[in-house]
C-alpha cells in the first residue's frame, strides 16, 4: 500500500516537474520578457493584421497539407512497391531541412529560373511565378505534407487487417468502405495532424518571408522580430508571444473537442494483404508519383547543387558536425525523458487529463524562439553568464520543439501497454523495476525509436536559440550554413546543407531502425 502511494506521488512529481519545465520555458519566458519591458505592450493595427495573416496562412497550409496527405497516405497504405520504405523514410526529410535550404531547393524547381519555368519558356509560355501567397503555401505544403502523410499513414496501419477483410467480405461499396474504415480512421488522426501542422505554420517565420515576403505577408513572428530589433519594445514582444500561445490554445481545444475513438485492443500486427490494391492502382500511383516528385525534385536539386562542393568544405565542418550531433543527442535524451515522464504520469488518467498533458506539450511548438531565448537570457543573466549554458539551453529548447511529436507517439503506446499487461503484472507480482525494464520499455521500443529519431533530426536541422547565446566556440551545422551564406559562400553553404540532410536522415534512420530491430515488438 505504502509502495503504491509512493509510486503515485513519484508519478505526480515526475509529471509535475515536466509540466513546470514546459511552463517555465514557454509562458515563463514571455513573462520574463514582459517584466523587463515593464508590462505588456498594446497591439497596434499592424499587429492585428499580422495576427490575421498568420492565422489565414496557417489554416490554409494545414488544411491543404492534410487534405493532400489523405490520398497520398491511402495510396502508400494500399500499394506495395519497390522503394516504398525508402520513400516513407524520405518523407521525414523536408521536415528537418533548414528552411532556407528547402526554399532554395523549391526555387530550383518552381522558381523563375527553375526547371518548370525553363520548360515553360522553352515551349513558349510565360515563366512560372510563385512569389506571394502561392509561394507561402507551396513552401508550407512542401515542408508539412510529408509530416501529415506520415501521421495519416500511421493511422492506416493501426487498422487491424481483419477489419479490411470484414469489409471486403461484405461486398461493401466505396461509400460503405469509407464509412466503415476511413471515416473513423480520419476522424481520429486528421485533427491531430491538422493541429500540429497548423502550429508549425503559425510560428514559421522564414518560410513565409523567403517566398511570400513583403508587408502583405507579415506574420506574428515577424512582428515579434520587429518589436525586438527595431523598437526594442519588450512589452509588445511579450504581448505578441502571449497572443501566439492563446491562438495555439484555442486551436488545441478545438482539435481535441472532436471525440477520439477508442482502440479495442491491438491488431495482429501483420501487414494487411490488401486485395483492393489492384483496383486502385492507377489513382494510387498517380498520387505516389506526384507526391514523390514534389518531394524528391527539390531535394535532388539541393543534392546536385551541394554535392560537388563537399570536397571544398573547410575543416570546421567536422567540429560543427560533432557539435550538432552532440546537441541532437542531448536534446533527444531530454525530449524522450520528458515525453516518457508525461506519458507515465498521464497515460492512465482520463481523456481530459491526457488531452491536457498533450496540450501542454504543444506549448513548446507555440513558442517564438526569439522570446524564449530572450526570456531565458533574462532569467539567467542576474545569476550567471548565459553563454555558459548555451549548450544545455539549446538542447532543451530543441527538445521542447520535438516534444509534441514524441508525445503523440508515446502516450497511446504507454496506455495500450498498461491496458494489455497490467493484469499480468499484478498476477505475476512483478517489481516496478522488472515491469519498467522488461515489459514497458521493450514494448515501447518501436514508438520510442521513432520519437527519438524525430527529436534528433529536428534538433539537427534547427538553428535554434544557439545563435542568440553566441558562444564563439559552439558552431552547429545550420549556424555554419548561415555563416557561409553570409560570407557569400553559397556553394559551400549548399554542400553543408547536403552534409546536414545526410546526417539528420542518418540519425533518424538509426533511431527508427533501433526501434524496429527487436523482433518481439509489434
Amino acid at each position: 500500500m505504502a509502495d503504491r502511494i509512493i509510486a503515485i506521488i513519484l508519478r505526480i512529481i515526475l509529471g509535475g516537474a515536466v509540466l513546470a519545465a514546459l511552463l517555465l520555458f514557454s509562458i515563463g519566458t514571455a513573462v520574463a520578457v514582459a517584466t523587463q519591458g515593464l508590462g505588456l505592450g498594446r497591439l497596434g493595427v499592424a499587429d492585428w493584421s499580422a495576427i490575421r495573416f498568420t492565422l489565414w496562412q496557417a489554416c490554409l497550409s494545414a488544411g491543404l497539407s492534410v487534405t493532400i496527405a489523405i490520398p497520398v497516405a491511402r495510396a502508400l497504405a494500399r500499394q506495395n512497391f519497390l522503394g516504398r520504405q525508402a520513400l516513407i523514410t524520405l518523407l521525414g526529410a523536408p521536415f528537418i531541412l533548414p528552411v532556407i535550404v528547402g526554399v532554395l531547393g523549391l526555387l530550383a524547381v518552381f522558381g523563375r529560373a527553375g526547371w518548370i519555368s525553363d520548360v515553360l519558356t522553352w515551349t513558349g509560355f510565360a515563366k512560372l511565378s510563385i512569389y506571394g501567397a502561392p509561394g507561402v503555401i507551396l513552401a508550407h505544403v512542401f515542408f508539412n505534407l510529408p509530416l501529415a502523410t506520415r501521421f495519416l499513414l500511421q493511422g492506416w496501419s493501426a487498422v487491424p487487417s481483419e477489419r479490411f477483410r470484414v469489409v471486403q467480405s461484405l461486398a461493401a461499396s466505396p461509400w460503405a468502405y469509407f464509412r466503415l474504415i476511413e471515416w473513423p480512421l480520419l476522424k481520429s488522426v486528421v485533427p491531430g495532424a491538422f493541429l500540429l501542422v497548423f502550429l508549425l505554420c503559425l510560428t514559421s517565420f522564414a518560410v513565409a518571408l523567403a517566398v511570400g515576403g513583403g508587408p502583405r505577408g507579415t506574420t506574428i513572428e515577424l512582428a515579434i522580430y520587429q518589436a525586438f530589433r527595431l523598437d526594442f519594445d519588450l512589452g509588445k514582444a511579450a504581448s505578441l508571444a502571449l497572443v501566439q500561445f492563446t491562438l495555439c490554445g484555442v486551436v488545441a481545444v478545438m482539435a481535441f473537442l472532436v471525440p477520439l475513438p477508442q482502440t479495442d485492443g491491438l491488431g495482429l500486427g501483420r501487414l494487411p494483404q490488401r486485395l483492393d490494391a489492384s483496383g486502385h492502382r492507377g489513382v494510387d500511383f498517380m498520387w505516389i508519383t506526384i507526391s514523390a516528385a514534389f518531394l524528391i525534385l527539390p531535394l535532388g536539386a539541393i543534392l546536385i547543387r551541394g554535392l560537388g562542393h563537399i570536397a571544398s568544405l573547410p575543416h570546421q565542418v567536422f567540429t560543427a558536425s560533432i557539435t550538432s550531433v552532440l546537441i541532437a543527442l542531448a536534446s533527444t535524451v531530454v525530449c524522450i525523458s520528458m515525453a516518457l515522464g508525461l506519458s507515465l504520469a498521464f497515460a492512465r488518467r482520463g481523456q481530459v487529463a491526457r488531452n491536457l498533458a498533450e496540450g501542454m506539450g504543444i506549448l513548446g511548438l507555440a513558442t517564438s524562439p526569439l522570446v524564449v531565448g530572450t526570456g531565458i537570457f533574462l532569467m539567467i543573466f542576474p545569476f550567471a553568464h548565459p553563454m555558459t549554458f548555451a549548450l544545455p539551453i539549446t538542447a532543451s529548447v530543441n527538445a521542447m520543439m520535438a516534444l509534441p511529436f514524441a508525445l503523440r507517439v508515446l502516450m497511446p503506446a504507454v496506455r495500450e501497454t498498461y491496458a494489455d499487461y497490467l493484469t499480468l503484472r499484478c498476477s505475476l507480482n512483478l517489481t516496478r523495476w522488472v515491469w519498467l525494464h522488461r515489459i514497458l520499455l521493450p514494448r515501447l521500443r518501436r514508438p520510442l525509436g521513432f520519437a527519438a529519431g524525430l527529436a534528433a533530426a529536428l534538433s539537427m536541422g534547427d538553428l535554434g536559440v544557439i545563435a542568440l547565446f553566441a558562444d564563439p566556440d559552439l558552431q552547429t551545422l545550420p549556424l555554419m550554413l548561415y555563416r557561409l551564406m553570409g560570407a557569400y559562400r553559397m556553394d559551400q553553404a549548399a554542400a553543408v546543407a547536403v552534409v546536414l540532410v545526410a546526417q539528420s536522415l542518418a540519425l533518424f534512420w538509426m533511431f527508427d531502425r533501433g526501434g524496429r530491430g527487436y523482433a518481439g515488438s509489434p
Partner: protein
Amino acid sequence: MLALHKVQFRQGDFTLGADLLIPTGARVAVIGPSGGGKSTFLNGIAGFIATDGGQVLWQGQPMPDHPGLRPLSILFQDHNLFPHLNVMDNVAIGISPDMRLSQTQKQQVRAALDQVGLSDKSASYPRDLSGGQQGRVGLARMLLRQRPLLLLDEPFSALGPALKDEMLDVLRQILHVTSATALMVTHDPKDALAFANQAILVADGVAMAPQPIQQLFDAPPPALRAYLGHWT
C-alpha cells in the same frame, strides 16, 4: 458441396495445398498445429488469399474472385465489430453495408438480435459489451446474412468454458435455421468434438481430406498425435 480442386494458397513464402471435398451441410473442425496453415486455409476459401493454381468450387461452380461475392460469411477471433458503430448497425452491415435499410430489413436485423439474445443492446457500442456479447453480435450478423457457407476462425477461443459453450449453442441454432455448411478453426479438441462431425487436419502446408472426427481422434496420424500430446 465445397470442392477444392488441387488448390495452392500462397501467402508470402508460405504455400498450402488442398485437394478435398466437403459435403453440403457438414460441420467441419479445422485442426492442426499452430503455423500449420489453418487460418490460411480459411482465408483462402474466403478469397482473401490468391490461389496459385487449382479451383475452389461451390455447388460445381467456380467461386467468384471477390470475397464479397462468395456465398459465405466469415468470423475472426478479433475485430469483427466496428467500434464506431452501435450493435444494430454492426449487424445491419451484414446485409446493407451502406446502412440504408428498408422496413423489412430492419425487422430482420431485430429478429437476428433477438435470436442471439441481444435485443436490448441494439443501441449499445462494442466497447460497452462483454466479450461474450461481442461474439453474439458477430453471430447475429452471420445469421442475418443467410449465406450457405460459414467460416469461423477461432471466434470463441478467448472466452471462458461456460461462455464458449453458450456460443456454440447459439451457433448450433443458427446452423439449424440456415442448414449452412460450417468450417471452424479451433485448437481445442473438446470444442471440435462438441461442434463438428468431420475434421480436416492442416499440417506442414497440406490440408487433408475431411474424416469423421471420432475416427480421426481415435487413430491420429503422427502430425496430429504430436499436436494433441497426451489428450485422450
